[in-house]
């Protein structure tokens, strides 16, 4: 299992390292660019966990959709690259307390949760099962989410539409 661990830490390093650059970088293009690596790192961890479908959807949705839209915003905004983003520290104490509580919560969840370990080996492909579950057990939620996305789409289109008057 050692080889497996090395790959896991490699992906974790890529994810955390690039996420750090996203937050601290003063150049918005670099920030957007390193977000690409964050998404890839997360996708890599999904692959390691045997969630092949989730990994590929992660790339399709986040890298192929959301990040591209973000880059569009950056590219279409003139002179945005020369603007220095303020990355100073304000309200140090409340931030430290908040982050400390969050960190503690995550660590305690990690340590004290009774993880449900499945006795079955990782299935070769999760796609078929996900599809079956979506269309049987979770069909209502699935349809509702579809409606929600449709409403968002129509809303965005009607906001973007210029008035004819």
């Amino acid at each position, binding site marked *: 299992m050692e080889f497996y661990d090395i790959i896991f830490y490699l992906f974790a390093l890529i994810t955390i390292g690039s996420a750090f650059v996203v937050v601290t970088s003063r150049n918005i*293009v670099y920030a957007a*660019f390193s977000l*690409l690596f964050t998404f890839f790192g997360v996708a890599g961890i999904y692959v390691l966990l045997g969630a*092949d*479908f989730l990994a*590929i*959807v992660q*790339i*399709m949705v986040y*890298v*192929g*959709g959301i990040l*591209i839209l973000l*880059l*569009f915003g950056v*590219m*279409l905004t003139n002179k945005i690259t020369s603007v220095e983003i303020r990355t100073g520290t304000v309200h140090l104490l409340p931030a430290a307390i908040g982050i400390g509580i969050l960190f503690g919560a995550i660590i305690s969840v990690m340590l004290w949760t009774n993880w449900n370990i499945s006795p079955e080996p990782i299935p*070769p*492909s999760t*796609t078929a099962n996900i599809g079956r579950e979506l269309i049987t057990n979770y069909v209502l939620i699935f349809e509702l989410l579809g409606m929600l996305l449709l409403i968002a789409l129509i809303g965005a289109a009607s906001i973007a539409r210029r008035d004819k008057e």
Partner: protein
Amino acid sequence: MSLLETVIFAVIKMLVIVVVMFLTVAYSVYFERKISAWAQNRMGPNRVGYRGLLQPFADVFKLLVKEDIVPDAAHKPLHTLAPFIALFVAFATYAVVPFGPSINLFGYDVKLVVADVNIGILYVLALTSLGVYGITFAGWSSGSKYSLMGGIRSSAQMISYEVSMGFSIAGVLLLSESLRPIEIVNAQYGWMWNAVLQPIGFITFVVSAFAETNRLPFDLPEAEPELVGGYHTEYSSFKFAAFFLAEYANMIIASCLIVTLYLGGWQIPYIDKLGLGETLTVILQVGAFIFKVVFMLFFFIWVRWSIPRFRYDQLMNIGWKVMFPLSLVNILWVAVLIMIFNL
């Protein structure tokens, strides 16, 4: 098969595909020039080698020895990275395209595909969305307004047509009940090709493929009269060659996908009725695959030299108001087919 053998076979397959790919890309350029010459009633390249057959090598050599100029206003790291993203995406897609059924070689059962991934089609879609990055970065990092306009146009076009492309593929997936390219081809046994069963989906997919590869009539990203050269205006030498190769590699991969998804892949109808030997059958089937791909390549080039370019608003209207509804109609049609005929 042990791990070592698997790795060795994978490396051999990759090497074969990379070599074949570079040759095919080089010769598709030659093919394009010859066909354009034919369409315009002139000779085409005929000086280097017999009937100009060595022309591609001369072209590549010429591009390699040219000076590499990076404009002052360019963002250097991204400017250098962009052509490699384009090339990487174009070549990585070949990993999941099956060239033929399994073949028995020296006692090993070899699958004629580099990676037999069970979500191969999703992998292709994910890589296509990555392809947008090469062009976007190229357009933005060049620091020139022509490049930027080309890059933005191209990204908007590719994102729009990815939608109808994805929905057309959904029709294929409904019939094959698998995301594995090999099983999609197996599902099209005999004459049950998807192009026959779902002609609307075939048309929307082919049109989207044209838009995704930025080929005429949808080559607005580089529309010469308005944008000089679009996103590769500021590129020269090897970086330009990388974009050029990527464009042709994309064209070939689009042809491979059309053949795999809609034209039955390596399937030849009724070949098992002829009683040929196993090896001969496989060779014929691989030949059939290559023949279909070359035909689609010819089609790509033929269309380029026959149809004028669309205007940008027309392109977007076709994408969203014609192709997208049609691909939805196709899904409905396939569902009805499955309901009635239990395919």
